[in-house]
């Protein structure tokens, strides 16, 4: 399934190597990067590979060079032959394709009235393979779910430490029910189509059976919309940060919903000192803080703090 969705957006010249991957390698496939007149780079399990005669190659000598036509065709496949249908997405610089993969694009940006109008001459494509790690929240959930009561939680993590993956798995487990706890209704506002990886509104990742998802919706409005329309018990959002977000979170909490959200940052102290988040944390709303760190693998260390910022536990995943 995953293989087909990736194959679909690559040109025929670039498809061959995919079939030589075994299932495990396919699971660890992270990125495929195309840049005009530069070698094709494939990232598997944090290691870089090049392409040589349809085989993965470690040195960068005599390897496959991406042509202008490769890029043009790939864009056609990514956009389903209809780039015009993705004007808004182009402005943000990425398109989500079938299978939930995120395709980042870079090229010449056209600006009108100080706003990005569109992008032309796309020369760099980064296909980020969506991967869900089911069960990565197993050891964290007991800290945020106590006696059928969910605690307001903030996940703090630097980029590429797996915060979205963790959030997705938490949503899935809360929604399906975790061990003896019953499943509950979860509302997800997925502004950047990362949590659900929606394609035409249908989540491609498993986010549970009691989850309602608003795809591509701005967080602030989305949270209010969900409360009015879907009466969720928990609302999950990714990457909060603006002062509007904080107001919306206030509203959600006053409406009696539980909040689970993520934020960029490397430590609790750093996040506490961010001007906007300071306000939110100062109110003592969040009852659990989970700080992610990477040592041997992505997000393998999770530090959990309680309401008083006291370290409760350090979870180290054995990989």
């Amino acid at each position, binding site marked *: 399934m995953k293989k087909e969705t990736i194959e679909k957006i690559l040109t025929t010249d670039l498809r061959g190597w995919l079939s030589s991957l075994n299932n495990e390698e396919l699971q660890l496939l992270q990125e495929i990067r195309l840049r005009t007149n530069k070698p094709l780079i494939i990232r598997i399990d944090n290691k870089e590979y090049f392409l040589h005669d349809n085989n993965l190659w470690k040195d960068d000598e005599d390897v496959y060079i991406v042509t202008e036509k490769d890029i043009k065709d790939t864009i056609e496949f990514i956009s389903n*032959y209809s780039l*015009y*249908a993705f004007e808004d997405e182009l402005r943000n610089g990425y398109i989500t394709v079938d299978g939930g993969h995120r395709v980042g694009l870079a090229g010449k940006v056209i600006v009108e009235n100080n706003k990005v109008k569109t992008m032309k001459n796309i020369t760099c494509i980064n296909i980020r393979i969506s991967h869900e790690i089911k069960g990565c929240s197993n050891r964290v959930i007991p800290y945020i779910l106590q006696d059928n009561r969910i605690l307001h939680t903030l996940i703090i993590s630097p980029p590429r430490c797996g915060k979205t993956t963790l959030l997705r798995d938490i949503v899935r487990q809360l929604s399906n029910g975790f061990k003896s706890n019953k499943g509950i209704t979860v509302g997800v506002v997925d502004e950047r189509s990362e949590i659900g990886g929606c394609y035409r509104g249908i989540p491609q990742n498993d986010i549970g059976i009691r989850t309602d998802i608003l795809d591509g919706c701005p967080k602030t409005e989305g949270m209010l919309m969900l409360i009015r329309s879907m009466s969720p018990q928990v609302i999950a959002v990714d990457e909060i940060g603006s002062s509007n977000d904080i107001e919306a979170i206030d509203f959600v909490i006053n409406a009696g919903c539980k909040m689970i959200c993520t934020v960029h940052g490397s430590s609790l102290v750093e996040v506490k000192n961010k001007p906007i988040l300071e306000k939110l944390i100062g109110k003592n709303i969040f009852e659990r803080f989970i700080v992610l760190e990477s040592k041997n693998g992505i997000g393998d260390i999770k530090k959990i703090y309680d309401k008083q910022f006291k370290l409760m536990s350090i979870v180290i995943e054995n990989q």
Partner: protein
Amino acid sequence: MIIKILGATLILMSSSLIGFYYSKSYIRRSEDLRTFKKALILLRGEINYSLSPMPEALEDISKRFDHEISDFFRSIAEELKLNLGKSLTEVWKKKAEEILKRTYLNPIDIKNIMIFSENIGYLDKEMQTNNINLLLEQINEEIKTSIENDNKYNKLYRSLGVLGGILVIVLFI
């Protein structure tokens, strides 16, 4: 003698039929052009208002009418869905050559339609609309000349058919 008369009538009939057939060709071409124009207007709507991706838009349009042109649209959509790694322009051109030859469109029309495909699906909505409008303009002009030609040559072909038949008969007798 009877055989001679029979032969003469056969020649006269077939030559006039050929004449009639050719006299109709302009009208048939303008009808096909109109159908194509209708399809293009639908495509413009699909792009502008519902932002449907090209394969879906083409398939939806092909369901709205019954004609070789709807076969043309459908077969493009079907081939695109196979994900063979071909570009829209390639598929469009191939199908135009295969299927539009069966219609009354002439080689110039087919060439225009093929050139049109080089800019389709690419860039933004505005660009798509402009591209479609350009082809519509060309088609309108072709319809106009086709009707003018019909007025000019319609009678000519018919009389040419009948008279040609008579000429052959006279020569043989």
